[in-house]
Structures are given as C-alpha cells and as structure tokens.
C-alpha cells in the first residue's frame, strides 16, 4: 500500500478492500465470465470505470470522495482505514493523476464512445496493438517505466508467473497501477489459466446478470453485474450483486450516471440495502 489506494466510490466494495480502496502502484487482474471471457466487455468496462477515476484531474468532482463524509463513518472499523486512505490519496493526486493510460491489446476493438460512457476519456488512452502475449507483457512493462503514464492495461491470454511478478514489482517501484484483463480464445486455455497462480494483488471476476424487468417497461432493463473479488492480498474474497449503474455504467434509460455523481449519494445504510452480499 506504499502508493495509497483509490476508493471505488461504492462503499460495499471499498469496505472489503484493505485500506478502503484499490491499491495504487500494484497489479490487478480482471476476468470476464462465461462467453464474455473471450470478448472482455465487462472486464474492460470495469477497468474503464477505475481508470476514469484514476485519471480525473484533481479539480473534478471526484475529489469530493476524498472528503471525510458521513457515508463512511458508520462503517465498522472505518475510522483507522479511512484516514490511511485519505492521506495516501492526497499524496497520489499531486503525483500524477494527469497522464495517459497505456492500453495494450491484441485486437483494437475498444470503442471510444463506450469508454466515454464509462467515465474514461478516450483521449487519454494510448492503444498499443501487439499480436503476442509476450509482446503485450513487454509493452506493459515498458509503460510502467515511463513517465506521463498513470495506468497500464494489458489484455493477455497466457500469463506466466514470472511475467506477472515482474509487472507487480515494476508497478510497485514506480507507483503506476497496472491492470491485466484476461481474454481467452478457447476453453482449454481458459481452464488452464484460471487455475494458475500469479502475482497480482487482486483478482476480480465480473459477470453479467440478467436484467430485471422494471415496472412493466418493455425492452432491456438496467444492466446488473456480479462483481467477485476472487483474491485479494490482505483481504477476504467477496462477491456482490449490484446494478451496474453504481459503477457508472449507462443504463437503459439512455442516461449516464457518472461515477462523479455517486459522490453525493445518500450515506451507507441506503447503499447497504441495495446490495445483496452473496459470498
């Protein structure tokens, strides 16, 4: 936690993470689920949401999250963790929130408007296309050594233990946060890779849930996700079922609820009702 944490802005998740947020300067792994393991749409959306918060200029409303608010105070054991995260974040903001995101991927299928809808300014993303996993890992490591980069994302299939450890060490050294989005083309590789250990600090799995038809409205309802924290260094695995708009995902009403708006939402007790903790 040498580089501080980035709170999700979703109290339930922040509570499960040591330090009250996602560790900066560390390697995080994000998995898709089911058929999305190949496309990585949810993993990309989840990453975009985090990156959007990571790259917000200091003057943006996201800063209000760092203010000690009533929303955090009732949480159990919240006091100590809260101060830790606040001081760390304060240091992080001055260091380099302004910068680019290096996104290394084998097929440049990221869509700008989609990223923008998840709160990440596409103008901040530099895409690096490399066909082989080894090249993507190399590019990520280069990015972790460079200046002007706030976060590095890589979409890889095969991930050797050594490579993940190198990335984790590089991320720790320079304080740049790295994300690995796992995309697997075929089931055999997916099964193999899922079981392999790696050096990432957290491992997430994001799955889509069928939307609930709301108030008799026809059509596609609001997206719902199951966010699973499969592994977390210094924390417990957990899982949440949540409406995706809590994470800044645009819903079916054509409106975008940006993460910034979450800052001023009602305090934690209300949030606690919204989530059903399943794991």
């Amino acid at each position, binding site marked *: 936690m040498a580089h501080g944490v980035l709170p999700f802005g979703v109290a339930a998740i922040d509570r499960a993470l040591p330090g009250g947020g996602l560790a900066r300067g560390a390697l995080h792994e994000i998995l898709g689920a089911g058929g999305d393991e190949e496309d990585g749409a*949810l993993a990309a959306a989840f990453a975009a949401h985090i990156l959007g918060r990571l790259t917000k200029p200091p003057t943006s409303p996201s800063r209000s999250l760092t203010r000690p608010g009533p929303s955090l105070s009732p949480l159990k054991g919240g006091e100590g963790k809260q101060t830790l995260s606040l001081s760390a974040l304060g240091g992080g903001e001055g260091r380099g929130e302004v910068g680019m995101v290096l996104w290394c991927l084998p097929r440049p299928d*990221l869509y*700008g408007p989609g990223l923008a809808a998840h709160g990440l300014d596409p103008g901040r993303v530099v*895409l690096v296309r490399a066909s082989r996993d080894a*090249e993507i890992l190399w590019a990520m490591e*280069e990015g972790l050594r*460079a200046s002007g980069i706030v976060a590095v994302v890589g979409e890889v299939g095969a991930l050797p233990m050594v490579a993940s450890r190198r990335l984790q060490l590089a991320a720790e050294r320079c304080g740049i946060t790295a994300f690995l989005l796992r995309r697997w083309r075929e089931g055999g590789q997916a099964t193999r890779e899922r079981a392999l250990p790696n050096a990432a600090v957290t491992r997430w799995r994001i799955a*889509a849930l069928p939307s609930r038809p709301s108030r008799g409205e026809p059509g596609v309802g609001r997206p719902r996700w199951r966010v699973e924290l499969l592994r977390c260094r210094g924390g417990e695995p957990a899982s949440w079922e949540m409406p995706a708009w809590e994470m800044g995902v645009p819903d079916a009403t054509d409106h975008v609820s940006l993460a910034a708006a979450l800052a001023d939402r009602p305090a934690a007790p209300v949030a606690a009702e919204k989530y059903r903790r399943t794991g």
Partner: protein
Amino acid sequence: MPLADALSFLPGLATTLAKPAEDAAALRRLAEWCGRYSPWTAPDGADGVRIEITGSAHLWGGERALAADLAARLDRRGVASRIVIADTLGAAWAMARFAEASASVVILASGRLRAALASLPVEALRLDPITAQGLRRVGLKRAGDLYAMPRDALARRFGETVARLLDQALDEMPEPLSPLGEVPSRRVRLSFAEPITEPADLMLATERLTADLVPRLAREGTGARRLDLGFYRVDGRVERIRIGTAHPSRDPRHLAALFRERLDTVDPGLGVEDMILAAHAVEPLPAEQIGLPGHTASPHPNPPPLAGEGMGGGIAPLLDRLGNRLGLAAISRLEPRESHIPERASVRVQPHLTLPIPTDQVRGLKAHDAMGPLPLPPKGRRGPKTPSPPPGAERAGVRWGISGKPPRPIRLFDPPEPVEAFWLLPDDPPFRFMWRRRRHRVMRADGPERIADEWWRPGGAGEVDAIRDYYRVEDEDGRRFWLFRAGLHGGDRKPRWFVHGVFS
C-alpha cells in the same frame, strides 16, 4: 574464345562458372560499403563503383589520403582495384579502365582532364561496341579525335549519345549520380583504429555518435524522425539498424536507448571498423526549456500529451520504444469524429498526428474524397477493413458523444461479425442467434435504431444494404450485444444479421 579452345592452348586452366547475379550482389555490397566515404555511392556497370566525394574528401585529409585509405582497405580484402579521382564521372570511368598508367591510384587534376582523355581509345567514352566500331571505321580512333568535331555533326552521324557522353566526360554537361539508397540530411561517422566486436563497445560508439549528431540538429532547430545506423564490418558487409520516432527528437540518451534495444540484432562478424549515423528525416523541433528539477506536475489540468516534450518527460520516448519494436502503426489513439456510422464515430490515429491541426486545413475536399461511400458489411466471415478517414478530417469541435444517443458498446468489432439469426416479424429483433458457434436466446431487446448511409458523401446514397437497424439485445446469461440487420425486408436479397459490438 570457347572454353575448349582455351583449354587446348593452356591445359590445366582453372575455370569457374560465371554467376552474374552473385557478382552484381557482391558489387552492390561493395558500393554500400563505400558509403563510409560518402553517402553518394552506386555500383557502376559490372565491375565498378562510383563514389561522389565532393565535399567529403577533406574529412579524410584530402583526395590523396582518401584514395590511399580506400586502396589499402580494398587490398586487404583482396579486391584488385584501380582508383581514379577526376572531375567527371566519365573521365574517372575512362581513366580507371583505359589509362596505361601502372599506378593503382590516379588523381586527375582539373586542368589535365582534356589532355589525359585525348590519348585514350574512343571506347573510353562509355560507348557501346557498335558505336565505337562505327567511329573507328571513319578513322576516329582516340577520344581526342572527337574534340574538334562539331557536336551536331557527331549527333547526326552517330546518335545523341556520343556527343552527350563526350560532353559529360569533359565536364561540359552535368551528370548526376543516383546514389544507392537515400541520401541523409545529416550524418556523423566514427572510425576505429581496431575493429570492435563487443556489444558494450558498440553501444559506447552509438552513444558517441548520437551525442555528435544532436548538436547539429539543435543548431538547425530540427529533430530526427528517422535514423539509420550503419555498421561497416571489416569483411565489407554493412549491418544496419533503422529506427523511427513518433515525434521529432534530439535527446541523445533517448535516441541511443532506441538503438540499444536493437543492437543485439547486429552481427559484428570479425569486427566493425566504422559506424555511420545518418538522420534521414528531420523535422522542425524548436528549442525547448528543459524541465526544472523537482518540477514535475504540470500546471495544466489536461495538457496535450505530446506537446512541449522531447528532452525530459512525456510519453513520446515510450511511444518510440514501443513503436520501434512493434511498428509505429501499432500505436494509436482514439479520436471522435462527427458521424452516425458507429465505426466512423471513433477512429484510431497515429499519436503524433493528434497534435493540433488548423481547422481551415482540415475541412477540405480531400477528407471527403477519401471517405467514400459507406462500405457494405462483409459477405464472408472476414471482409475488407473499413477504410478509416484521414487524420484530422472532420475533427473540429467533435466531442465524445455520450448523451442523446442510445447506449454504445464498449467493444466494437471491425468488421462486424455475421451471425445466423432467426426472427418472426420483419421489424422484430431475432429471438435466437448463433454467434461463434454458440447459441444465444434473446430474452429482451431494444430497438431498432436505424442508421442509414451518409448520403452526402460521394457515392453514398441508394444502397438498400447500407441501411442498418441496430438492436440492443440481452441473452439468457445477461450478456448484451449490439446486433444489426443490414438491408430491408421485401428486397431481392434476404437481410443479413451482424454482431457489431458487446455491451458491458
């Protein structure tokens, strides 16, 4: 003389097969190696190399020293040679092949050009054998015999070539030399007394060269976009590393680092005796303020990511490192465009092209010409890629539209992937579709959102196939897809369905 005759004259004559292609390749290599003397070199015929040393002889201590150096090196490599330095290519060619002097190095002073050529046979004027024979038949045996002839008479009788070649040899008409490869705008050379082979030595030399080159670029206010580092090996081969940069650069450490990554691709053989660093493409790069120590945070909340960098910070060095390994085309950024066509609303552009371009230059015919009509979705599984509009086109004032339109997917497939879909009513979304050998049952759907062709583009109207109806569908697992139907019902062709993207 046929081989049989020759063997009867001289039994035991050593023979070897002629290999013109290999000879030509070897000559080309030799010419390339001669690049250590001047960038203007080219193979000449089957047995010669031309080197333009105007302006580079002084680097070697004069023409005589240059010729001596060249002769010694050729000798060491076992290449029999005669070196002639003259004012014109024609004269040098003639003297090298027809002069009776025994010396291996001949330097022809400017004033002696006519006199020296006069005694040579007419063949020395680079004439083809038939023309030369014709000249001999009328008694013109020596080049000097032609001096007095009126040029128009010569041209009438023997063709334009004779007169031209004579004039060129006598320096009365210019003769350009087309060099092998590209002539750099700046180059620096480093020679070693002892050939070097160690990677560490090569790196050290590379650093010296870049440090040499940079002040010259700085004086001109330019930065290099493309650099070529040549390793001249003792065996006459030339190894090269070429690097490119995304943004003009004259940071010696950065440039040296770019070379370092590729240095292991260089085979020094028995040793490298010369290294030449050439800057091929230079672009203006104004003088810059070097960042003050300790001052890293930018006053701008959102600075243009590449501007004003090069000597210290910024991501340009990173892009160069990535680009030189993966190819500069692998690096891109997303730019919004004013278009309803989904794949046109977000395009990938080269990072260095995202520097501000004046809008009045952007809105031109060129941009629209290049766009063309909306491409039809591919017929097979993989169709041709959608041509992306030129950089800078229609950029002015475009922002990422996230409101006002139905949601857009986070991943967009280019080209759209065809699916096998089943539907009931013409305007309904499918109730089931097959994609990537997997069956998806459509539980819910939104739509259609009709996106028609951009008819105002040249050739953009009238295609029924170009009308797309987009549906956002959710399958039984909750995954969401962006499907579209290309074409309308009731036409001659059945409409086809595609997956264009996936939602989060």
